Protein backbone atom coordinates (compact mmCIF):
# COMPACT_ATOMS: atom_id res chain seq x y z
CA UNK A 1 0.00 0.00 0.00
CA UNK A 2 1.48 3.34 -1.00
CA UNK A 3 1.55 6.38 1.26
CA UNK A 4 -1.21 8.12 -0.70
CA UNK A 5 -3.41 5.01 -0.50
CA UNK A 6 -2.84 4.89 3.25
CA UNK A 7 -3.83 8.55 3.64
CA UNK A 8 -6.92 7.96 1.48
CA UNK A 9 -7.85 5.00 3.68
CA UNK A 10 -7.56 7.07 6.84
CA UNK A 11 -9.62 9.88 5.32
CA UNK A 12 -12.28 7.39 4.23
CA UNK A 13 -12.51 5.78 7.67
CA UNK A 14 -12.10 8.77 9.94
CA UNK A 15 -13.29 11.66 7.76
CA UNK A 16 -12.99 15.00 9.49
CA UNK A 17 -11.23 13.48 12.47
CA UNK A 18 -8.01 13.65 10.43
CA UNK A 19 -6.89 17.24 10.96
CA UNK A 20 -3.81 16.95 8.78
CA UNK A 21 -2.20 14.22 6.68
CA UNK A 22 1.19 14.44 4.98
CA UNK A 23 3.83 12.17 3.58
CA UNK A 24 7.11 14.13 3.82
CA UNK A 25 9.33 11.30 2.61
CA UNK A 26 8.79 7.86 1.07
CA UNK A 27 7.15 5.27 3.34
CA UNK A 28 6.43 7.84 6.06
CA UNK A 29 2.90 9.07 6.77
CA UNK A 30 2.20 11.73 9.40
CA UNK A 31 -1.38 12.24 10.59
CA UNK A 32 -2.70 14.74 13.11
CA UNK A 33 -5.77 13.87 15.17
CA UNK A 34 -7.43 15.01 18.40
CA UNK A 35 -6.32 13.13 21.57
CA UNK A 36 -9.65 11.30 21.78
CA UNK A 37 -9.29 9.97 18.20
CA UNK A 38 -5.92 8.24 18.59
CA UNK A 39 -7.71 5.01 19.49
CA UNK A 40 -9.82 5.21 16.34
CA UNK A 41 -6.67 5.77 14.26
CA UNK A 42 -5.03 2.74 15.93
CA UNK A 43 -8.11 0.67 15.02
CA UNK A 44 -7.71 1.70 11.39
CA UNK A 45 -4.04 0.69 11.44
CA UNK A 46 -5.08 -2.65 12.87
CA UNK A 47 -8.02 -3.47 10.62
CA UNK A 48 -7.17 -1.75 7.33
CA UNK A 49 -3.38 -1.76 7.24
CA UNK A 50 -3.24 -5.25 8.73
CA UNK A 51 -0.66 -4.46 11.38
CA UNK A 52 -0.96 -3.79 15.07
CA UNK A 53 2.69 -3.09 15.64
CA UNK A 54 3.27 0.03 17.71
CA UNK A 55 6.97 0.85 17.45
CA UNK A 56 7.02 3.46 20.17
CA UNK A 57 5.44 6.68 21.46
CA UNK A 58 7.46 9.91 21.37
CA UNK A 59 6.67 12.88 23.53
CA UNK A 60 7.75 16.42 22.70
CA UNK A 61 7.65 19.57 24.78
CA UNK A 62 6.61 22.46 22.53
CA UNK A 63 6.38 25.09 25.26
CA UNK A 64 2.67 25.54 25.83
CA UNK A 65 1.65 22.15 24.50
CA UNK A 66 2.88 18.58 24.49
CA UNK A 67 3.02 16.75 21.22
CA UNK A 68 2.61 12.99 21.35
CA UNK A 69 3.54 10.90 18.31
CA UNK A 70 2.49 7.27 18.04
CA UNK A 71 4.77 5.44 15.61
CA UNK A 72 3.05 2.45 14.01
CA UNK A 73 5.00 0.09 11.78
CA UNK A 74 3.45 -1.95 8.99
CA UNK A 75 4.62 -4.03 6.09
CA UNK A 76 5.13 -0.95 3.85
CA UNK A 77 6.74 1.72 5.95
CA UNK A 78 5.37 3.48 8.96
CA UNK A 79 2.45 5.63 10.06
CA UNK A 80 2.92 8.34 12.66
CA UNK A 81 -0.17 9.59 14.45
CA UNK A 82 0.37 12.96 16.07
CA UNK A 83 -1.77 14.61 18.71
CA UNK A 84 -1.41 17.69 20.90
CA UNK A 85 -2.47 18.26 24.50
CA UNK A 86 -2.17 21.44 26.60
CA UNK A 87 0.71 21.51 29.08
CA UNK A 88 -1.56 23.06 31.73
CA UNK A 89 -3.84 20.02 31.72
CA UNK A 90 -1.80 17.07 30.42
CA UNK A 91 -4.24 14.19 30.18
CA UNK A 92 -4.27 11.47 27.56
CA UNK A 93 -6.49 8.40 27.11
CA UNK A 94 -4.59 5.11 27.18
CA UNK A 95 -4.09 3.10 24.00
CA UNK A 96 -3.75 -0.19 25.89
CA UNK A 97 -7.30 -1.49 25.17
CA UNK A 98 -6.45 -1.48 21.45
CA UNK A 99 -2.68 -2.16 21.54
CA UNK A 100 -1.63 -3.95 24.77
CA UNK A 101 2.03 -3.46 23.86
CA UNK A 102 1.68 0.30 24.41
CA UNK A 103 1.92 -0.02 28.17
CA UNK A 104 5.65 0.50 28.66
CA UNK A 105 5.71 3.51 26.35
CA UNK A 106 2.76 5.14 28.11
CA UNK A 107 4.32 4.58 31.50
CA UNK A 108 7.49 6.18 30.14
CA UNK A 109 5.43 9.23 29.05
CA UNK A 110 4.06 9.53 32.58
CA UNK A 111 7.54 9.43 34.09
CA UNK A 112 9.31 11.71 31.66
CA UNK A 113 6.68 14.33 30.83
CA UNK A 114 4.20 14.10 33.68
CA UNK A 115 1.34 13.29 31.33
CA UNK A 116 -1.51 11.54 33.15
CA UNK A 117 -2.43 8.57 30.98
CA UNK A 118 -6.01 7.63 31.83
CA UNK A 119 -7.11 4.03 31.93
CA UNK A 120 -3.63 2.52 32.13
CA UNK A 121 -3.81 -1.01 33.57
CA UNK A 122 -0.63 -0.46 35.58
CA UNK A 123 0.19 3.22 36.28
CA UNK A 124 3.23 2.77 38.58
CA UNK A 125 6.46 4.59 37.69
CA UNK A 126 8.60 2.65 35.24
CA UNK A 127 11.90 4.47 34.88
CA UNK A 128 12.27 6.97 37.70
CA UNK A 129 13.58 5.70 41.04
CA UNK A 130 11.33 5.05 44.03
CA UNK A 131 12.61 8.13 45.87
CA UNK A 132 12.27 10.45 42.86
CA UNK A 133 10.86 13.82 44.06
CA UNK A 134 7.29 14.45 42.89
CA UNK A 135 6.71 16.99 40.15
CA UNK A 136 10.07 16.43 38.43
CA UNK A 137 9.68 15.49 34.81
CA UNK A 138 13.11 15.26 33.14
CA UNK A 139 12.20 15.60 29.48
CA UNK A 140 10.24 18.81 29.92
CA UNK A 141 12.27 21.65 28.45
CA UNK A 142 12.03 23.79 31.57
CA UNK A 143 13.41 21.05 33.82
CA UNK A 144 16.92 21.56 35.08
CA UNK A 145 18.82 19.28 37.35
CA UNK A 146 20.66 20.40 40.45
CA UNK A 147 22.78 17.57 41.71
CA UNK A 148 22.14 17.26 45.45
CA UNK A 149 25.24 17.22 47.59
CA UNK A 150 26.45 13.71 48.10
CA UNK A 151 26.16 12.35 51.60
CA UNK A 152 28.66 9.68 52.45
CA UNK A 153 27.47 7.57 55.37
CA UNK A 154 30.01 7.89 58.13
CA UNK A 155 32.04 10.42 56.15
CA UNK A 156 32.69 14.11 56.72
CA UNK A 157 29.61 16.26 56.63
Amino acid sequence: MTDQEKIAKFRERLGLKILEATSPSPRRVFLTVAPADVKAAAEVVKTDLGSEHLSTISGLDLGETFEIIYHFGDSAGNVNVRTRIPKADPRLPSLCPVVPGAILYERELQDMFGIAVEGLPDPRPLLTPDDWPAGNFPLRKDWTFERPQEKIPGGKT
Partner: protein
Amino acid sequence: MKFQIPIGPQHPALKEPISLRMTVEGEVIRDADIRLGYNHRGLEKLAEQKSYIQNIYLTERICGICSHSHAVAFTQGAERLLEIEPPKRGLYLRHLVAELERIHSHLLWLGVAGHEAGFDTFFMYTWRDREVVMDLLEMISGNRVHYAINTLGGVRRDLDEALRKKILEGLDVLKQRSEYYFKIGASEPTFVARLAGVGKLPRERALALCAVGPTLRASGIPNDVRKDDPFAFYGEAPFEVATADTCDVLGRTVVRIKELFESYKICGFILKNLPSGPVAVKAPRKAKPGEVVSRYEAPRGENIHYIKSNGTDKPERLKVRAPTLANYPATVEMLRDGFIADIPLIFAAIDPCICCAERTVELRDARTGEERSVRFSELRRTAEERFRRLPAQRNVPWPF
Protein backbone atom coordinates in the same frame (compact mmCIF):
# COMPACT_ATOMS: atom_id res chain seq x y z
CA MET B 1 0.50 -21.17 47.90
CA LYS B 2 1.97 -18.28 45.95
CA PHE B 3 5.19 -16.53 46.75
CA GLN B 4 7.45 -14.01 45.08
CA ILE B 5 11.00 -14.20 43.80
CA PRO B 6 12.81 -10.96 43.03
CA ILE B 7 15.35 -11.29 40.23
CA GLY B 8 17.76 -8.47 39.65
CA PRO B 9 18.12 -5.54 39.51
CA GLN B 10 21.89 -5.36 39.23
CA HIS B 11 23.66 -7.34 36.54
CA PRO B 12 27.08 -5.87 35.80
CA ALA B 13 27.29 -7.19 32.27
CA LEU B 14 23.93 -5.76 31.21
CA LYS B 15 23.26 -2.59 29.32
CA GLU B 16 19.86 -2.45 30.93
CA PRO B 17 19.71 -3.76 34.47
CA ILE B 18 16.23 -4.97 35.13
CA SER B 19 14.30 -6.17 38.11
CA LEU B 20 11.84 -8.99 37.63
CA ARG B 21 9.59 -10.08 40.43
CA MET B 22 8.18 -13.53 39.85
CA THR B 23 5.06 -14.77 41.55
CA VAL B 24 5.47 -18.51 41.75
CA GLU B 25 3.33 -21.38 42.85
CA GLY B 26 5.65 -24.26 43.58
CA GLU B 27 7.90 -24.46 40.55
CA VAL B 28 5.48 -22.74 38.22
CA ILE B 29 5.67 -19.01 37.45
CA ARG B 30 2.22 -17.44 37.67
CA ASP B 31 3.15 -13.84 37.00
CA ALA B 32 6.17 -11.68 36.38
CA ASP B 33 6.51 -7.98 37.07
CA ILE B 34 9.08 -5.70 35.44
CA ARG B 35 10.75 -2.66 36.95
CA LEU B 36 13.19 -0.70 34.80
CA GLY B 37 15.29 2.39 35.20
CA TYR B 38 18.19 1.10 37.26
CA ASN B 39 20.64 2.28 34.67
CA HIS B 40 18.74 5.17 33.17
CA ARG B 41 21.40 7.50 31.82
CA GLY B 42 19.24 10.41 30.70
CA LEU B 43 20.60 9.95 27.22
CA GLU B 44 17.68 11.55 25.39
CA LYS B 45 18.06 14.73 27.45
CA LEU B 46 21.83 14.67 26.93
CA ALA B 47 21.39 14.37 23.15
CA GLU B 48 19.55 17.71 23.12
CA GLN B 49 22.76 19.39 24.31
CA LYS B 50 25.12 17.78 21.79
CA SER B 51 25.69 18.54 18.15
CA TYR B 52 24.75 16.04 15.43
CA ILE B 53 28.30 14.77 15.00
CA GLN B 54 28.75 14.34 18.76
CA ASN B 55 25.45 12.49 18.94
CA ILE B 56 26.75 9.76 16.62
CA TYR B 57 29.27 8.83 19.28
CA LEU B 58 26.67 9.20 22.00
CA THR B 59 24.15 6.91 20.32
CA GLU B 60 26.89 4.39 19.60
CA ARG B 61 27.22 3.99 23.35
CA ILE B 62 23.57 3.10 23.94
CA CYS B 63 24.32 -0.57 23.44
CA GLY B 64 27.47 -2.53 24.06
CA ILE B 65 26.84 -5.34 21.58
CA CYS B 66 24.89 -3.82 18.71
CA SER B 67 26.60 -0.44 19.04
CA HIS B 68 26.66 0.12 15.29
CA SER B 69 22.89 -0.28 14.90
CA HIS B 70 22.03 2.77 17.01
CA ALA B 71 24.70 4.83 15.27
CA VAL B 72 23.28 3.82 11.87
CA ALA B 73 19.71 4.61 12.90
CA PHE B 74 20.78 8.04 14.13
CA THR B 75 23.11 8.81 11.23
CA GLN B 76 20.65 7.94 8.48
CA GLY B 77 18.02 10.08 10.21
CA ALA B 78 20.38 13.00 10.72
CA GLU B 79 21.55 12.76 7.11
CA ARG B 80 18.00 13.23 5.92
CA LEU B 81 17.59 16.28 8.18
CA LEU B 82 20.88 17.75 6.94
CA GLU B 83 19.75 16.99 3.37
CA ILE B 84 22.85 15.08 2.35
CA GLU B 85 23.08 11.78 0.55
CA PRO B 86 26.01 9.51 1.45
CA PRO B 87 27.93 8.18 -1.57
CA LYS B 88 27.12 4.62 -2.58
CA ARG B 89 30.44 3.20 -1.48
CA GLY B 90 30.03 4.76 1.94
CA LEU B 91 26.57 3.28 2.26
CA TYR B 92 27.78 -0.19 1.26
CA LEU B 93 30.64 -0.09 3.77
CA ARG B 94 28.31 1.13 6.53
CA HIS B 95 26.01 -1.81 6.00
CA LEU B 96 28.89 -4.25 5.57
CA VAL B 97 29.87 -3.41 9.15
CA ALA B 98 26.19 -3.65 10.12
CA GLU B 99 25.87 -7.19 8.75
CA LEU B 100 29.18 -8.29 10.28
CA GLU B 101 27.87 -6.96 13.57
CA ARG B 102 24.69 -9.00 13.15
CA ILE B 103 26.86 -12.09 12.59
CA HIS B 104 28.90 -11.46 15.73
CA SER B 105 25.78 -10.76 17.78
CA HIS B 106 23.99 -13.91 16.64
CA LEU B 107 27.08 -16.07 17.20
CA LEU B 108 27.34 -14.62 20.68
CA TRP B 109 23.67 -15.40 21.30
CA LEU B 110 24.00 -18.98 20.03
CA GLY B 111 26.81 -19.49 22.53
CA VAL B 112 24.69 -18.11 25.36
CA ALA B 113 21.77 -20.33 24.35
CA GLY B 114 24.05 -23.37 24.28
CA HIS B 115 25.43 -22.47 27.70
CA GLU B 116 22.00 -22.00 29.25
CA ALA B 117 20.78 -25.26 27.76
CA GLY B 118 23.74 -27.05 29.34
CA PHE B 119 25.55 -27.63 26.04
CA ASP B 120 28.85 -25.92 26.76
CA THR B 121 30.70 -27.43 23.80
CA PHE B 122 28.41 -25.45 21.53
CA PHE B 123 29.16 -22.32 23.54
CA MET B 124 32.93 -22.86 23.16
CA TYR B 125 32.60 -23.47 19.42
CA THR B 126 30.44 -20.44 18.62
CA TRP B 127 32.51 -18.06 20.71
CA ARG B 128 35.71 -19.32 19.13
CA ASP B 129 34.24 -18.75 15.66
CA ARG B 130 32.97 -15.35 16.73
CA GLU B 131 36.59 -14.27 17.04
CA VAL B 132 36.87 -14.58 13.25
CA VAL B 133 34.25 -11.90 12.70
CA MET B 134 35.54 -9.77 15.57
CA ASP B 135 38.97 -9.79 13.92
CA LEU B 136 37.41 -8.74 10.62
CA LEU B 137 35.64 -5.85 12.32
CA GLU B 138 38.87 -4.83 13.97
CA MET B 139 40.68 -4.90 10.63
CA ILE B 140 37.99 -2.70 9.04
CA SER B 141 37.45 -0.17 11.80
CA GLY B 142 40.29 -0.56 14.28
CA ASN B 143 37.94 -1.57 17.08
CA ARG B 144 36.26 -4.75 18.18
CA VAL B 145 33.08 -3.30 19.66
CA HIS B 146 32.58 0.44 19.17
CA TYR B 147 33.53 0.67 15.52
CA ALA B 148 33.04 4.46 15.24
CA ILE B 149 32.91 4.05 11.48
CA ASN B 150 29.85 6.22 10.83
CA THR B 151 30.04 9.89 10.14
CA LEU B 152 27.49 12.33 8.78
CA GLY B 153 27.54 11.75 5.03
CA GLY B 154 29.21 8.35 4.89
CA VAL B 155 31.87 6.34 6.71
CA ARG B 156 35.27 7.22 8.10
CA ARG B 157 37.41 4.41 6.71
CA ASP B 158 37.82 2.79 3.33
CA LEU B 159 38.52 -0.79 2.37
CA ASP B 160 41.41 -1.93 0.18
CA GLU B 161 41.60 -4.97 -2.06
CA ALA B 162 43.69 -7.05 0.39
CA LEU B 163 41.17 -6.48 3.18
CA ARG B 164 38.28 -7.28 0.86
CA LYS B 165 39.88 -10.67 0.12
CA LYS B 166 40.47 -11.28 3.82
CA ILE B 167 36.83 -10.60 4.65
CA LEU B 168 35.68 -13.00 1.92
CA GLU B 169 38.02 -15.68 3.30
CA GLY B 170 36.74 -15.09 6.82
CA LEU B 171 33.15 -15.34 5.63
CA ASP B 172 33.94 -18.69 3.95
CA VAL B 173 35.21 -20.07 7.26
CA LEU B 174 32.15 -18.79 9.09
CA LYS B 175 29.80 -20.21 6.50
CA GLN B 176 31.31 -23.67 6.90
CA ARG B 177 31.10 -23.44 10.67
CA SER B 178 27.47 -22.30 10.53
CA GLU B 179 26.59 -25.26 8.35
CA TYR B 180 28.04 -27.41 11.08
CA TYR B 181 25.84 -25.71 13.70
CA PHE B 182 22.86 -26.28 11.49
CA LYS B 183 23.65 -30.00 11.41
CA ILE B 184 23.94 -30.10 15.20
CA GLY B 185 20.20 -29.58 15.37
CA ALA B 186 19.61 -32.77 13.44
CA SER B 187 22.29 -34.84 15.18
CA GLU B 188 21.91 -33.66 18.78
CA PRO B 189 18.36 -34.50 19.88
CA THR B 190 18.95 -33.61 23.55
CA PHE B 191 19.74 -30.00 22.64
CA VAL B 192 16.62 -29.73 20.50
CA ALA B 193 14.50 -31.38 23.18
CA ARG B 194 15.74 -28.93 25.80
CA LEU B 195 14.70 -25.92 23.69
CA ALA B 196 11.41 -27.20 22.31
CA GLY B 197 8.25 -26.00 24.01
CA VAL B 198 10.06 -23.59 26.37
CA GLY B 199 8.89 -19.95 26.51
CA LYS B 200 5.81 -20.23 24.33
CA LEU B 201 4.72 -16.99 22.68
CA PRO B 202 1.64 -17.53 20.47
CA ARG B 203 1.41 -15.60 17.22
CA GLU B 204 -1.49 -13.33 18.29
CA ARG B 205 0.15 -12.43 21.60
CA ALA B 206 3.46 -11.62 19.87
CA LEU B 207 1.59 -9.23 17.59
CA ALA B 208 -0.54 -7.65 20.32
CA LEU B 209 2.43 -7.10 22.63
CA CYS B 210 4.44 -5.51 19.80
CA ALA B 211 7.40 -7.89 20.03
CA VAL B 212 10.23 -7.31 17.55
CA GLY B 213 13.08 -9.10 15.85
CA PRO B 214 13.84 -12.83 16.12
CA THR B 215 11.35 -13.11 19.01
CA LEU B 216 8.55 -12.00 16.69
CA ARG B 217 9.81 -13.91 13.67
CA ALA B 218 10.01 -17.14 15.69
CA SER B 219 6.25 -16.78 16.21
CA GLY B 220 5.73 -17.01 12.47
CA ILE B 221 5.43 -13.30 11.61
CA PRO B 222 7.79 -12.27 8.80
CA ASN B 223 8.40 -8.70 9.97
CA ASP B 224 11.84 -7.33 9.20
CA VAL B 225 12.51 -3.61 8.76
CA ARG B 226 15.06 -4.43 6.07
CA LYS B 227 12.22 -5.89 3.96
CA ASP B 228 9.25 -3.79 5.10
CA ASP B 229 10.97 -0.44 5.05
CA PRO B 230 13.97 -1.00 2.77
CA PHE B 231 16.46 1.73 3.69
CA ALA B 232 19.84 2.07 1.96
CA PHE B 233 20.34 -0.73 -0.57
CA TYR B 234 18.27 -3.42 1.15
CA GLY B 235 15.65 -3.12 -1.57
CA GLU B 236 18.08 -4.73 -4.04
CA ALA B 237 20.12 -6.98 -1.72
CA PRO B 238 19.27 -10.68 -2.02
CA PHE B 239 18.00 -12.03 1.27
CA GLU B 240 15.01 -13.79 2.77
CA VAL B 241 13.28 -13.02 6.05
CA ALA B 242 13.95 -15.96 8.35
CA THR B 243 10.96 -17.21 10.29
CA ALA B 244 9.94 -20.22 12.35
CA ASP B 245 6.49 -21.19 13.53
CA THR B 246 7.25 -23.18 16.67
CA CYS B 247 6.79 -20.03 18.86
CA ASP B 248 9.38 -21.23 21.41
CA VAL B 249 13.10 -20.98 22.20
CA LEU B 250 13.83 -23.61 19.57
CA GLY B 251 12.23 -21.36 16.95
CA ARG B 252 14.26 -18.38 18.14
CA THR B 253 17.45 -20.42 17.78
CA VAL B 254 16.52 -21.55 14.28
CA VAL B 255 15.65 -17.99 13.21
CA ARG B 256 19.05 -16.76 14.34
CA ILE B 257 20.97 -19.55 12.59
CA LYS B 258 18.99 -18.85 9.40
CA GLU B 259 19.74 -15.14 9.72
CA LEU B 260 23.45 -15.92 9.90
CA PHE B 261 23.23 -17.44 6.41
CA GLU B 262 21.26 -14.44 5.14
CA SER B 263 23.89 -12.09 6.54
CA TYR B 264 26.68 -14.04 4.79
CA LYS B 265 24.69 -13.64 1.59
CA ILE B 266 24.31 -9.88 2.07
CA CYS B 267 28.02 -9.46 2.95
CA GLY B 268 28.92 -11.40 -0.19
CA PHE B 269 26.62 -9.16 -2.24
CA ILE B 270 28.21 -6.02 -0.78
CA LEU B 271 31.78 -7.18 -1.38
CA LYS B 272 31.03 -8.32 -4.92
CA ASN B 273 29.19 -5.15 -5.91
CA LEU B 274 31.26 -2.63 -3.99
CA PRO B 275 31.08 0.57 -6.05
CA SER B 276 34.16 2.74 -6.43
CA GLY B 277 34.33 6.38 -5.44
CA PRO B 278 34.48 8.43 -2.27
CA VAL B 279 33.24 7.04 1.05
CA ALA B 280 31.88 10.27 2.51
CA VAL B 281 30.62 13.71 1.56
CA LYS B 282 31.03 16.87 3.57
CA ALA B 283 28.10 17.56 5.87
CA PRO B 284 26.74 20.94 6.96
CA ARG B 285 26.64 21.62 10.69
CA LYS B 286 23.12 22.97 10.98
CA ALA B 287 19.86 21.29 10.01
CA LYS B 288 16.70 23.09 8.90
CA PRO B 289 13.66 22.63 11.14
CA GLY B 290 12.11 19.28 10.42
CA GLU B 291 11.54 15.81 11.74
CA VAL B 292 12.44 12.31 10.70
CA VAL B 293 11.60 8.76 11.75
CA SER B 294 14.54 6.45 11.19
CA ARG B 295 14.13 2.68 11.49
CA TYR B 296 16.79 0.02 11.39
CA GLU B 297 16.75 -3.73 11.92
CA ALA B 298 19.24 -4.35 14.73
CA PRO B 299 20.28 -7.94 15.56
CA ARG B 300 17.65 -7.92 18.32
CA GLY B 301 14.87 -6.34 16.27
CA GLU B 302 13.46 -3.06 15.12
CA ASN B 303 15.34 -0.02 16.31
CA ILE B 304 13.56 3.32 15.91
CA HIS B 305 14.90 6.85 16.31
CA TYR B 306 12.75 9.95 16.05
CA ILE B 307 14.75 13.14 15.51
CA LYS B 308 13.36 16.68 15.44
CA SER B 309 15.59 19.53 14.37
CA ASN B 310 15.14 23.22 15.12
CA GLY B 311 17.52 25.03 12.79
CA THR B 312 20.58 24.84 15.04
CA ASP B 313 23.44 22.32 15.11
CA LYS B 314 21.76 20.40 17.94
CA PRO B 315 18.60 18.30 17.72
CA GLU B 316 15.48 19.57 19.47
CA ARG B 317 14.53 16.06 20.49
CA LEU B 318 15.91 12.58 20.01
CA LYS B 319 13.69 9.67 20.92
CA VAL B 320 15.30 6.23 20.95
CA ARG B 321 13.56 2.92 21.32
CA ALA B 322 15.89 -0.05 21.63
CA PRO B 323 14.53 -3.47 20.62
CA THR B 324 14.94 -5.06 24.04
CA LEU B 325 12.40 -2.64 25.56
CA ALA B 326 9.82 -3.70 22.99
CA ASN B 327 10.37 -7.34 23.91
CA TYR B 328 9.79 -6.98 27.66
CA PRO B 329 5.98 -7.29 27.61
CA ALA B 330 6.38 -10.42 25.49
CA THR B 331 8.94 -11.82 27.94
CA VAL B 332 6.41 -11.60 30.75
CA GLU B 333 4.03 -13.57 28.58
CA MET B 334 6.70 -16.21 27.86
CA LEU B 335 7.59 -16.64 31.52
CA ARG B 336 3.97 -17.08 32.59
CA ASP B 337 3.17 -20.72 33.36
CA GLY B 338 6.78 -21.69 32.75
CA PHE B 339 9.13 -23.22 35.31
CA ILE B 340 11.66 -21.42 37.52
CA ALA B 341 14.27 -23.68 35.97
CA ASP B 342 13.49 -22.28 32.52
CA ILE B 343 13.99 -18.62 33.50
CA PRO B 344 17.62 -18.44 32.27
CA LEU B 345 16.75 -19.95 28.91
CA ILE B 346 13.68 -17.78 28.30
CA PHE B 347 15.55 -14.63 29.26
CA ALA B 348 18.46 -15.52 27.08
CA ALA B 349 16.11 -16.14 24.17
CA ILE B 350 15.10 -12.48 23.78
CA ASP B 351 18.84 -11.75 23.76
CA PRO B 352 19.13 -9.11 26.45
CA CYS B 353 22.18 -11.10 27.60
CA ILE B 354 20.80 -11.02 31.12
CA CYS B 355 22.08 -14.52 31.62
CA CYS B 356 25.65 -13.76 30.63
CA ALA B 357 25.96 -12.30 34.08
CA GLU B 358 26.42 -14.33 37.17
CA ARG B 359 24.00 -12.91 39.64
CA THR B 360 21.99 -13.51 42.76
CA VAL B 361 18.41 -14.60 42.96
CA GLU B 362 16.54 -14.42 46.23
CA LEU B 363 13.98 -17.08 46.89
CA ARG B 364 11.48 -16.16 49.54
CA ASP B 365 9.44 -18.95 50.97
CA ALA B 366 5.99 -17.65 51.85
CA ARG B 367 5.29 -20.41 54.32
CA THR B 368 8.28 -19.82 56.54
CA GLY B 369 9.12 -16.28 55.47
CA GLU B 370 12.66 -17.48 55.05
CA GLU B 371 14.82 -15.92 52.36
CA ARG B 372 17.65 -17.64 50.67
CA SER B 373 20.05 -16.32 48.12
CA VAL B 374 20.96 -18.42 45.16
CA ARG B 375 23.79 -17.71 42.75
CA PHE B 376 22.62 -17.65 39.18
CA SER B 377 25.00 -20.49 38.41
CA GLU B 378 23.16 -22.54 41.00
CA LEU B 379 19.83 -21.75 39.38
CA ARG B 380 21.29 -22.94 36.11
CA ARG B 381 22.45 -26.12 37.76
CA THR B 382 18.91 -26.67 39.07
CA ALA B 383 17.68 -26.21 35.53
CA GLU B 384 20.08 -28.81 34.16
CA GLU B 385 19.25 -31.16 37.00
CA ARG B 386 15.55 -30.86 36.33
CA PHE B 387 16.04 -31.49 32.66
CA ARG B 388 18.20 -34.53 33.34
CA ARG B 389 15.41 -36.07 35.38
CA LEU B 390 12.72 -35.32 32.83
CA PRO B 391 11.76 -37.95 30.32
CA ALA B 392 13.36 -36.73 27.09
CA GLN B 393 10.96 -35.26 24.56
CA ARG B 394 11.52 -37.70 21.79
CA ASN B 395 11.23 -37.02 18.10
CA VAL B 396 11.16 -33.26 18.31
CA PRO B 397 11.84 -32.30 14.71
CA TRP B 398 14.50 -29.71 13.85
CA PRO B 399 12.28 -27.20 12.08
CA PHE B 400 14.73 -26.13 9.42
